[in-house]
């Protein structure tokens, strides 16, 4: 069975919590582990926060979240029409941030990569950014690893 949702929202800090809870709610019928739910919530939070902070800044704009479940494979796309990323490869380096003034840690993409099975970033300056992530659910370890 294939199941899909699409959420369009304003790029506001107030919507970051809603976005991750909505995606978590979408996958609950698959009975994912607590670990898996938190992994997905963290990745969504990172991508949506990036759209709020980096893509639009003060002037705001729209964020579109598309989720697709094919069996136990979760596919997430988070898209903005903001300023885009000049050098995606550099942006994905852990600890790299263009906003140290806002106390950003530069770990956003690193966490998306660590907590999901795959991460792809497509971006064009002046056009926007598309983050694509996938995770197979129900395959996590029974006991969350300590390391």
């Amino acid at each position: 069975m294939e199941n899909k949702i699409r959420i369009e929202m304003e790029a506001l800090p107030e919507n970051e919590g809603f976005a991750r809870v909505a995606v978590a709610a979408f996958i609950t019928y698959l009975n994912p582990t607590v670990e898996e739910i938190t992994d997905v919530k963290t990745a969504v939070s990172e991508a949506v926060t990036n759209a709020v902070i980096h893509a639009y800044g003060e002037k705001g704009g729209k964020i579109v979240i598309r989720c697709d479940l094919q069996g136990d494979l979760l596919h997430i796309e988070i898209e903005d029409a903001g300023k885009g990323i000049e050098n995606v490869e550099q942006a994905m380096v852990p600890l790299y941030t263009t906003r140290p003034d806002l106390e950003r840690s530069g770990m956003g993409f690193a966490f998306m990569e660590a907590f999901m099975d795959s991460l792809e970033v497509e971006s064009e300056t002046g056009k926007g950014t598309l983050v694509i992530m996938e995770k197979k659910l129900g395959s996590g370890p029974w006991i969350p690893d300590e390391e």
Partner: protein
Amino acid sequence: MNETFQIIDHYLMIRLPEEIDHKSCREISRQADHLMLDNRIEHVVFDFSDTKFMDSSGVGVLAGRYRKVSCFGGKVYVIHADSRMKRILRMSGLSKMIEFME
């Protein structure tokens, strides 16, 4: 001052919220910096007892406070962090800057 922040000697204790994200972080940093200046704080203790979720915004808050206290020889401590929080802090290279306590 609310119960999120507590000052004991020159220690600022911060009881972190259930969800540490971009939105909650802005307020924590703002209030912490204010209290640190006014009370000549030397060390900061982050208490993760209530925390169930943290994204990379939280890393920025801890690193930012570390930068402020470490130039005067101060320390940043983390207490009651579960294995996930510890993993996040370790991945971000913060375990070299902070001290974990139970």
